[in-house]
C-alpha cells in the first residue's frame, strides 16, 4: 500500500505543478509556448497510460544506463514516478486551463490596472480563484490516478495490487486476494469520492 500511496502522492504533486505551468503556457500569448504546451497535452492524452509506462520501463532506463555508464542501476521506481507525473500533468493541465478560463477577464484587468505584472496577477489573483473552483475535479483526477497506479506491474514493480497478486499466486489463494484488494480499492475510493462530493456541495 505504501508504494501505491507514494506513487499517487508524487504524481499528483508533480503533475499539478507541471500541469499548472503547462496550462499557463497554453494560455500564454507567445505562440511558441502555447503550441509546445498544446502538443505535449495532446500527445500524452492520446496515448494509453500503459504505453507511457512501458516506454519508461523499456527505453528510458536503458538510455540513462548508457549515459551514466552503470548497467546495474535500478531506476524503475524513479521511472514510474516520472512517467506517472508526466502523464498526469497533461490531464491536470486541461483541468487547470478550464479553471483559469472560468475566472472572468475583468479580474485580470483589475490586477493589471493596479500595477501588478501579468505574472503577479496570475499568481495572486487568478490562480487562487481558479484552484478553489477546481478542487473537486483535481481530487477526482487523483482518485483515478490512485487506481491507475496498479498498472506499475508492467514495470515489474510491486504496488499494493501487485503484492496481493503475488502473495495469492504463491499461497494458492489468488481469487480471495484479488477480491480482497479490490475491496480495499473500493473502500478507499468510495470514501474519497464521498468527501469530494461533500466538498462540491460546500463550494457550490
Amino acid at each position, binding site marked *: 500500500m505504501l508504494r501505491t500511496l507514494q506513487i499517487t502522492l508524487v504524481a499528483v504533486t508533480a503533475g499539478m505543478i507541471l500541469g499548472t505551468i503547462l496550462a499557463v503556457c497554453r494560455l500564454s500569448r507567445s505562440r511558441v509556448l502555447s503550441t509546445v504546451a498544446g502538443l505535449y497535452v495532446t500527445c500524452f492524452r492520446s496515448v494509453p497510460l500503459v504505453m507511457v509506462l512501458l516506454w519508461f520501463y523499456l527505453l528510458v532506463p536503458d538510455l540513462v544506463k548508457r549515459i551514466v555508464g552503470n548497467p546495474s542501476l535500478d531506476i524503475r521506481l524513479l521511472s514510474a514516478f516520472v512517467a506517472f507525473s508526466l502523464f498526469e500533468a497533461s490531464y491536470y493541465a486541461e483541468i487547470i486551463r478550464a479553471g483559469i478560463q472560468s475566472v472572468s477577464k475583468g479580474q485580470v*484587468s*483589475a490586477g493589471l*490596472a*493596479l*500595477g501588478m505584472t501579468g505574472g503577479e496577477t496570475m499568481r495572486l489573483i487568478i490562480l*487562487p*480563484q481558479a484552484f478553489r473552483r477546481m478542487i473537486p475535479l483535481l481530487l477526482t483526477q487523483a482518485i483515478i490516478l490512485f487506481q491507475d497506479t496498479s498498472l506499475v506491474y508492467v514495470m515489474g514493480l510491486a504496488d499494493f495490487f501487485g503484492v496481493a497478486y503475488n502473495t495469492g499466486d504463491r499461497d494458492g489463494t489468488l481469487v480471495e486476494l484479488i477480491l480482497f484488494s479490490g475491496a480495499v480499492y473500493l473502500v478507499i475510493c468510495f470514501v474519497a469520492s464521498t468527501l469530494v462530493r461533500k466538498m462540491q456541495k460546500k463550494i457550490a
Partner: protein
Amino acid sequence: MISIKNVSKWYGDFHVLKECSTEVTKGEVVVVCGPSGSGKSTLIKCVNGLESFQKGEIIVDGASVGDKKTNLSKLRSRVGMVFQHFELFPHLSVMQNLTIAQCRVLKRAPSESTEKALKLLEVVGLKAHAQKFPAQLSGGQQQRVAIARALAMDPIAMLFDEPTSALDPEMIKEVLDVMVNLAQAGMTMMVVTHEMGFAREVANRVIFMDHGQIVEDRPKTDFFCAPGTDRAQQFLSKILSHSAQG
C-alpha cells in the same frame, strides 16, 4: 496630464476609435458620454493600456502608453481605475483587496498599507466592513471599496468606466457622492458615465462620442445649454427626459 492624440483602433475590420484627440489637465474632471458601442469604454481603457491601439499616441504624465519601452505596470500603478462590475478580488477580504497592490507593487510595509486602507475605508464610509468579503457587501458598497482600492495607490489620476451602470438606482447615489467628493478634492478624473447629474455638478468638460469619434468636447455649460451637433442634442434629450421620468 493625459493627452490623447489621433488615436485609432480596429477590432479586425471594425473601426472602434477614429482619430480621437483630447486632453485632460491636472485637477480636471472630464465626463465621457455617448450611446453604447460608441467606443467610450475602449478609449478610457486605452489610457492605461488595458486596450491597445494601432495609431496615434497617448501620453500620461510624460510617459507614452503605446511605446513598448514604457513600463506599463508602473504607469498603471499611478493611474487608478474603477470598473463597471467592480472587479474586487472575491477570494480576499476587503482589507486585503486594499493592501495587496500596496504591498506588492509599491512595496509598502504591511502596517503602513493597513493604516492607509483603514483611512480610505473611512473616507468611503465602510470602515466597519474591513474584514468582510466582497460577496457580503451590496453592489454600492463593493464599488466604494473598489474606489478606495484604487485610491490606496495614491494615483495621479482616476479613470472610471461606467461606475454606476451595474448598480440599483438607490445605490447609485452613494457611489456618486464619493466621486463628487473626490472631484471636489481636486482629483484628476476621466469618467465614462450616463449620469448627467454628476456631469452637471462637477465636470469641467463633457466629451460626447458616437461611432468611435469624439463628436463634441466642450465645457459643460456649453454642452448642456447648446450642444453643437444634432446627434448630441438627440442623445441628451433622450437620456434627460428619461431621467426626468425616473
